[in-house]
């Protein structure tokens, strides 16, 4: 799975996710990537989110929307909300991670498993690439 979240000069957030699915999947199984609110969500009032991991758990936890709701209703920061939703995934037995970007340009990249590839670019031109682990 790959994904991207962005904040533009006009203050608009967007999120996208794309996946080739799961090796050996059967029965037309669909994961979280195409499910709005599970693997992808964007709202200018809060955050843009793209997830990756064990899709069933992201769907059951409505992870991307949950992150936004935690910020909107509970006032959590993007980092706190990200950590919270990934813990929920882990508590149910799922694994994965996500990228999130709030309306002010603060980012979070929480995860609970290895093999995570991440990258970011900020207004000052700084590009960061992170591979864990």
């Amino acid at each position, binding site marked *: 799975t790959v994904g991207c979240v*962005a*904040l533009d000069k006009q203050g608009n957030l967007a999120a996208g996710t794309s996946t080739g699915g799961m090796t050996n999947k059967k029965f037309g199984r669909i994961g979280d990537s195409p499910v709005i609110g599970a693997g992808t969500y964007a*709202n200018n009032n809060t955050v843009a989110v793209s997830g990756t991991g064990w899709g069933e758990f992201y769907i059951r936890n409505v992870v991307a929307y949950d992150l936004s709701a935690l910020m909107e209703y509970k006032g959590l920061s993007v980092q706190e909300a990200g950590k919270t939703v990934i813990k929920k995934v882990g508590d149910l037995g799922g694994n994965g991670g996500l990228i999130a970007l709030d309306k002010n340009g603060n980012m979070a990249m929480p995860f609970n498993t290895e093999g995570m*590839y*991440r990258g*970011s*670019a900020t207004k000052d031109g700084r590009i960061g690439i992170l591979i864990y682990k």
Partner: protein
Amino acid sequence: GNYVLVIHGGAGTITRNNMTADMEAAYTAALESSLKKGYAILQSGGSSLDAVEACIRMLEDDSLFNAGKGAVFTHDGSNELDASVMDGKTLAAGAVAGVRTVRNPITLARAVMEKSPHVMMAGRGAEQFAKEAGIEIVDTAYFRTEKSWKGLQRALQQDSLKALANPDTKFG
């Protein structure tokens, strides 16, 4: 205004434990190219939607990642692609599931969002919509990579043994 871009390359089956220096360089270069593409769009005043689509298209076209050209195989030996996009300004959204012939599913998801009254399309109907919307269609062979094919053969073998070597294996 502030502008920021973040990307991910998935929950990979390749970790630092089984990654060579060449592989790490290839992943890093691919992620950096995608970021530079999106950054250039944002820097020149382009929209976050355009940046998201452009970044993901580059990763879809790169066989290193499980999306687009690098898609993994289903049990019956086909590739089925899913994608979605959402606009934070309008809360509009578009998604496609189980498409087999669309080169860049993220572009199709955006077309669903912008050129149809629907949010999600699946399978053959989504492919028909793609053709009508002028989205690039490719032969299913385009998505085949040796790495993904071998991954399916390993999974089938493990399936037949009814045991997984690694409980953290993500199968893509």
